[in-house]
Every structure is written in C-alpha cells, then in structure tokens.
C-alpha cells in the first residue's frame, strides 16, 4: 500500500502543512523461562540480583550458549510478521561501557539478523487500514537496571534483567501520525501475544518502543530524523511524537536545521530533550561474537514451527466475519485481544452471533474496564453470557431487562435464568394480561387515544405506560401490536 499524504494527518505550521514521518523500533521481551545465553531464570518480582548467573555477571572465562527456545520465539514472530526467516544469521558484539552491562558489550545481531523483511496490516479505529513494512527482527540481550534513587551518592545495579532475550522489530518509516504509530504497536503486540512469543506487557517494560521522528513538506524527501527513547506507553508515544514533530517544524520554519540525535522523552514535562548528538554517538565497534557460532536453522524446523502456529489476528478476523457474520468492526474489536476472541467464540456457540458480540464487546467490556480487569479474569464466564443471550433470543426477557439481569450477574447473584426466576423478570407476552392493561389505559385517557389517530407517533406514550405498569416486563413487540389494533391504527 502506498503511503500517499493524507491531508487529514498533516500538521499545520506557520508557513504551511507538514507531514510527520515515523518509524519504530519495538523491543519485546521474549517469553522464556531462561535468558538468551546463560540459562539463568527469568521472572518478574524476584529480589535484586537473585536471577543472575556467572555468565550474566560476566565473570572471567564465562561463555554464552544460545537458548533454542528463544530462537524459536523469534522465528515464530518472524512468521507472524510475514517476514523472511534467515536460515543463516549471526550474533555480533555491540561494545560500550556501562555498569548495568557487565560484559562491556551487548550480544546482538547487527549485520545478519535472524528475520528479514516482512509486513504488518494495521487497522485504524475508523475501519480503514494501512501496511507497515518490517525491515528486520533480531535477537539481543537486554541490559540490567541502574537504580539511581536508592542512595544520594551511589547507583545500585540489579542484573536480573541482564541477558534476558529481546526481539527488536524495526519498521520502515511508513507511519504518518501518532495514532497510526500507536495502532501499529498495538497490532505488533497483538501478533506477538497470539504467538506466545512475548507477553507484550508494557506496564512491566516487556514491550518498549523507540520512535524515529522526522517531518517534511508533502512530496519532499525524508527529513533528518531524531530517535526518541524511553517511550513506554501508548499515551507517552502520542505525546512524544506530537511534541517532537512540533519542535522540528518550529526549527525548520525558523530557517533552522534538524540535528540527527537521540532524544529522551520526559514523561513528567511531556517533552523530548537531547540525550546525545550524532557526534557524541557511541562507536559501538560491532564485530561477530567469536564465542558463538553462526546460527544455522534447519528449513524443516521452520516448516514445523510454521505448521504449529496458532491462528493469527488477521486470519481470525476474516473467519469471525465469514463464520459468524460479524461486522468488520466487531470482528476487529474481538481479535484485538486473543482472550476476548476466545471468550466470544466460547459464548457464541449455538447463540445469536451478533447479539453475543454486542454483549461481549459492549456491556461486558465496559464492566471489565471499569473494574480494571482483563477478560481472562472476568467473573462472568462465556457460558453465563450464552445463557443470558439465550433468554433474550427466546423472548423470556427483553434486552432492557437483560441489562438489569446482567448487572445482577456481575454482582454475583447467580446465573441469568436463576435471576430472572428469583426476581420475577420474565417478560409478559400473555396477550390477555396486556389487553386488560391497554383497555384500562385507553378508557382512562380518551383524549390521548383520540390524538393518536392524527399523530400515530404518539403511540409511544401508551407503550411507555404499559411498560411502566408491567415494570418493564412487557414484550415490546406484543404491546405495539395490541395497541395498534385497539387504537385503530391498522
């Protein structure tokens, strides 16, 4: 898909419109019980330096040994990004000094990454979509953590994270707005979570992104870019991009020049500031790590991994649309989270697919969000939603009553059928009972009844009165039919 300038995305400057150009480097922690080269455990919540092996601490004479599981996750991710898997790749050393990097180099893949070019289809909220090119994905070690806030005169080092496997996914500069960049990250995150290659947990720092930002006038070549680091939430990403684009536009409109540099996003001030210029940039002295052999993958192994891949979001979405007749929008919302789609499919078995989708994506989703819960933690099980939908489908309760029943289900009062019985919420479809109420109403309000003849929409007043009299339990269809007959509207 070509990336033609979409005028709605342009930023207005003093001297005209500007287009922002974005490329992302996503760092996703590989889902693994052990680190990339050391065999030490990986886990959240361990005490400082409790998950550090001799290799992670770079003791003299220690050597890295590649973790096959981590390689498999990278291959899975590559396949999920529709990318080329390189059967021959190699690890390089990226040399720099920092206390949370015990070896004095990070083992990464510079020249020959494990995954080459691919692409990701990204949907926007308005239903439109765009494609982002993937330049590469490579495996690398994470660094440890420097704790600067424990002591006024010292920095503490926690090496638990040192040596943990990361996948770095580098995109092409294919995004033109902060919203698109966020949508892209969400989509990549969804794919990784579906694959089980990463838990994608941004709160724990298991998925982070560096954003390359440049601006240009439409149709002109790319401008000089700045890399923004420390962007660890969708909100910050948007803020950082917007701030940085404005900053660059102001400089250019003043006749200035953008310096290629690395900038840090300050979440407190909501601004980016220079970290190091191109001149100050490290010379990482990359070279092939002589402690490791080139990584050679067996094509049969790749085929096996491919055969075992789970259904990915795009395929699942297409299937939900064709199998359940869902709208593109509903299907998109459901596949956005694998657990949500699974929940839906479990609830929709034998039920009205559209109705079930509405309950899952609207009412349940709202309750979960308000309670700060994930769908996997939902106190209402898929079967319980199915039971509720069945009662609506069978006319036992109206959709309106169903909302009340659902609130009670959420409050833990029991299953839908049980609540309907206990609370006497069964819908009144008994024509005799309804006829009696209607006749009394017409008799008691002759003026209104006469008015309806000239103004048929005034029938709503009668419907409301019947509902009031039945505490909402009347079947609205039946009420309408009876009223029309009695008021002589047919």
């Amino acid at each position, binding site marked *: 898909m070509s990336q033609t300038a979409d005028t709605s995305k342009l930023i207005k400057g003093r001297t005209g419109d500007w287009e922002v150009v974005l490329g992302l480097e996503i760092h996703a922690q590989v889902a693994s019980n052990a680190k990339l080269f050391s065999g030490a455990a990986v886990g959240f919540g361990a005490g400082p330096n409790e998950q550090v092996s001799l290799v992670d601490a770079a003791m*003299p*004479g*220690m050597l890295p040994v590649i973790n096959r599981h981590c390689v498999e996750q990278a291959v899975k991710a590559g396949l999920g990004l529709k990318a080329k898997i390189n059967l021959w790749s190699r690890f390089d050393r990226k040399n720099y000094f920092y*206390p949370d990097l015990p070896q004095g180099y990070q083992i990464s893949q510079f020249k020959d990454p494990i995954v080459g070019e691919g692409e990701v289809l990204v949907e926007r909220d308005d239903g439109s979509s765009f494609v982002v090119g993937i330049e590469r994905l490579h495996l690398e070690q994470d660094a440890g953590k420097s704790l600067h806030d424990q002591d006024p005169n010292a920095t503490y*080092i926690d090496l638990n994270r040192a040596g943990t496997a990361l996948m770095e996914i580098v995109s092409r500069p294919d995004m033109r707005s902060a919203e698109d960049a966020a949508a892209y990250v969400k989509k990549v995150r969804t794919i990784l979570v579906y694959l089980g290659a990463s838990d994608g947990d941004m709160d724990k720092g298991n998925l982070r992104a560096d954003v390359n930002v440049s601006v240009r006038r439409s149709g002109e070549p790319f401008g000089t870019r700045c890399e923004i680091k420390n962007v660890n939430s969708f909100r910050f990403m948007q803020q950082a991009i917007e701030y940085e684009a404005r900053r660059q536009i102001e400089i250019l409109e003043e006749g200035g020049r953008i310096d290629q540099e690395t900038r840090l996003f300050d979440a407190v001030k909501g601004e980016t500031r220079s970290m190091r210029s191109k001149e100050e940039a490290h010379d990482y*002295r990359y070279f092939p790590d*002589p402690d*490791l052999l080139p990584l050679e993958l067996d094509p049969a192994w790749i085929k096996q991994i491919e055969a075992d891949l789970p259904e990915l979001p795009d395929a699942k979405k297409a299937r939900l649309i064709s199998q359940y007749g869902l709208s593109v929008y509903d299907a998109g919302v459901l596949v956005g989270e694998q657990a949500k789609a699974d929940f839906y499919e479990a609830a929709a078995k034998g039920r009205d697919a559209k109705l079930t989708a509405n309950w899952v994506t609207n009412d349940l989703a709202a309750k979960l969000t308000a309670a700060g819960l994930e769908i996997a933690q939902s106190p209402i099980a898929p079967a319980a939603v199915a039971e509720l939908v069945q009662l609506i489908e069978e006319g036992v309760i109206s959709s309106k009553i169903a909302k009340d029943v659902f609130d009670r289900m959420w409050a833990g009062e029991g299953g839908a059928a049980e609540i309907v019985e206990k609370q006497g919420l069964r819908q009144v479809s008994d024509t005799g009972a309804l006829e009696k109420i209607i006749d009394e109403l017409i008799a008691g309000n002759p003026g209104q009844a006469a008015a309806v003849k000239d103004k048929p929409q005034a029938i709503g007043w009668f419907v409301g009165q019947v509902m009031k009299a039945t505490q909402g339990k009347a079947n609205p269809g039946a009420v309408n039919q009876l009223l029309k007959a009695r008021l002589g509207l047919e």
Partner: protein
Amino acid sequence: MAELTSLTLKAALDGLNSKAFSSAELTQAHIEAVEAARALNAFVAETPERALEMARASDARRARGEAGPLDGAPLGIKDLFCTEGVASTAASKILDGFKPTYESTVTANLWRDGAVMLGKLNMDEFAMGSSNESSAYGPVVNPWRRQGSNSHLTPGGSSGGSAAAVAAELCLGATATDTGGSIRQPAAFTGTVGIKPTYGRCSRWGIVAFASSLDQAGPMARTVEDAAILLKSMAGHDPKDSTSLAVETPDFPSFVGKSVKGLRVGVPKEYRVDGMPAEIEALWRKGVEWLKDAGCEIVEVSLPNTRYALPAYYIIAPAEASSNLARYDGMRYGLRVDGRSLTDTYEKTRAEGFGTEVKRRILIGTYVLSAGYYDAYYLKALKVRRRISEDFEAAFGKVDALLTPTAPSAAFTLGENADDPVAMYLNDIFTVTVNLAGLPGMSLPAGLDAAGLPLGLQLIGRPLDEGTLFSLGGAIEKAADFRAKPQKWW
C-alpha cells in the same frame, strides 16, 4: 627425593600404580622443588596444602582401586585457568585477589582423572606476550642459561611459567594456553613438549579469554607421551562452550610409538625466513632426515599467504581482546580505583589495572574495530585468515602433516626485546598461522644451539588429527634423543 621429580609423568604414574611411592610422597617432593625454585618466579600462587590434601585423597582412591588415569600426578596450572577458591588473576593486577567460585572445564577434567594441583603458574598478563615480561608478577626466568653466562633468559610466553616449571622439574606437567604460539614457543625455549590441539578440542569455559576465536588450551610436558596423556584428560566436548567440538577424544597415548612409515610430511618453503639463524635451519634439515629415516616421504609445499599471517593475527587477536577485556571495569570483582565520576573510575581502574602490553593491544583492537577502519583492518584480516586456511587445506591435500621450526630464535635475554613490540611479535611468525587456521600444532625439543640452549621443531596437523602429530613427534623424539637438562642454578 630429587629423583621423584625427574620422572616422566608416565613413569610416575607407573610408580604410583606399582606402589613404589605414594602420591603424597611424589607431591611432597614437588612441593619442595617448587619452594626451592622461587628464583625462577614460575608460580604466582603455591597451593601446597591443597596439593597434599588432593594427594592423600588420591592415595585413598588408589587403595580402593578407583584410581583415574592421572591419579596422584602433581601438575601446575597456568593462572589463566579459573580454579575454584584459588586466586586466578591471569597475571594481571586488575584481577588482583580474584577467587572464582567455579572451576574451568579443563582443570575440572584433570581433577576428575585424579591429578593434583601444585599451584598457579606465572604467565604474560592476559596471555599477551612472548617473553613473560608482561606479567604483573614480574617475568619468569628460564631455567636454561647460555653456556658461560649468568644472564637471565626468557622462558618464552605467554605460558612461560608452565614451560619453566616443567623444564625445571617442578611439576610432572602443566596446563597452558596458546593463542598465537603461547604453548609452542615457550616449549621450544625450554626444551619441553607442548601441543596446541585443534581449536574446539578443549573447552574454553573457565579460561580467562584473550582472543576467543584463537585461544586453545593444551598441555606442556617433558615427553611426547606425557603430553598425549595430559591432552587426553584435558580434551572433550563441553556444552558450556559453543565452540567446543562434539567429537570423541581419541586415545592419544596410543599414537605415540606408532610407525610413521609412508606418512607424507610437508616442508613449507615460506617458513625459510630472512635472518633465521643457521642453526635453526640446520636443525630443521635434521628433522627432515630423521623423518625420512623413519619412512616418511618429505614433500616441499607452499603456503603462499604466510607473510600476511602475522599482521592479520595482530589485528584479529587485539580486536577480540579489546572487547573481551571490557568486563574488567572495577564494578564487580578485581581492582577498583574510585574516581570522581563513573568514567573517571573506569579510566583510573583500567589505567592502574592493566599493564603496558595489554593497554597497547586494547588500543590496537579498539582502533581496528572503529567506524571507518573496520573494513580496512578487521575485515581484511578476516579475509587473510580465510586465505591462510585455504593454503593449509591445499597443503593437506598433498601431505599428512607439516614440519617447521617453532620459533625464529632460541631463548633471548630478558629485556632484550622489551622496548620493541614488533621485534617481540616476530617471535610468533611460525606459530600464529596454526591458530588462525584452528589446526593442531606441537613443538618438541630437537637439539641445542651453540650456546647450549634448546631449539624446537613444530609439527602441524590436519584438524582433529593430533594423533598423527603424536606419532610423528614420537619418531622425532626418538631420533633426536634429546636428553639435555638445564643446569640447576636456582
């Protein structure tokens, strides 16, 4: 019990097996020899208590009939090997006082087979040197002296302590390492046998790294058979070292004494370098005659890229070293010199912790990997390395092994080349090619020069064909009948 220290390893093992003496007696004799030889400065750490403890345990095993192949044999260990609970410093101030909590695979293999540790042997700092003068503990003194001279000679390097200790009969054998000739050149300078096996034959795990793609452990001993016995114990696949070869270890001692009749031995014409002493040239010719007499066919071969080997080596080895030594930053172990800031601490620690030669190589290595120089130096050197391997492959299409001198001179006076690093580097001219190609190479004593100093010949074999080297080495050893010993002056 001077006679116990004069035994070969094989004879000592036979004596232990026949109960002629105990390991405690054998070990005590060596402890006394070590104590009496402090003028040689061969040991950086003596571990007599541990040695006697290991010896008594060995005697107990033997009494139970559980003796291993090396049971009770006292050995010296180069300080580059990490030994659990015993200071392991690579003869560097920066690792002052460092006591590993782990045992290198090679030494663990020796202890598994029953060997006894007498202590840690002096060496060039981080194995960088050809004269032992770069040691933080001062140089080892060669037990050999020129006739009629009291001047102190180098034992060669970097495994100078290993060579001197074996030559002076302070231990029955020693571990050593060879990155560019560090086993073979000291062997030649001290009248001992040393073999650098095929790259990957011995695990590098737990050996302080110098240049990972070149480093290889090997034994030093007084006979070819002793070297074969030691190598058999040291070698073996280790999953903790990714470059360790998953191959069976042959019964090396069984190759010693095997007929070499019909073997084709190559003499590379490029190894006749300008300025090589006539005595070495003559000894080389003598070696050829001995092998002819033993039934070998001698073939002149060409290794056309030999002259590029030394420059390539002095790019690749420092490049890897500059990265390998980055971990010595004063943050976790070893020397730390606090400065005003992090960078200041790094600079002060490394300025004080590393010696001149190590600093020189870190600088060279950092330079050749720098942006803008990488292609011209490092990449070019890798291409040369490939060519050198191809030269050997072509030669081994015609011959089974190669015969060359080990070093271009006999042992020189300490201090003689101290101010001229290039002259020092030229010591490695016949040995570095073997490391660049990952081949096995052995040096063995073949005669004395006019001043009464030992000279060595080098045998180079096909990958994993140490066996042929042991057979040829045995044949030369028999023909040369080298019985000279250094006159005890210490």
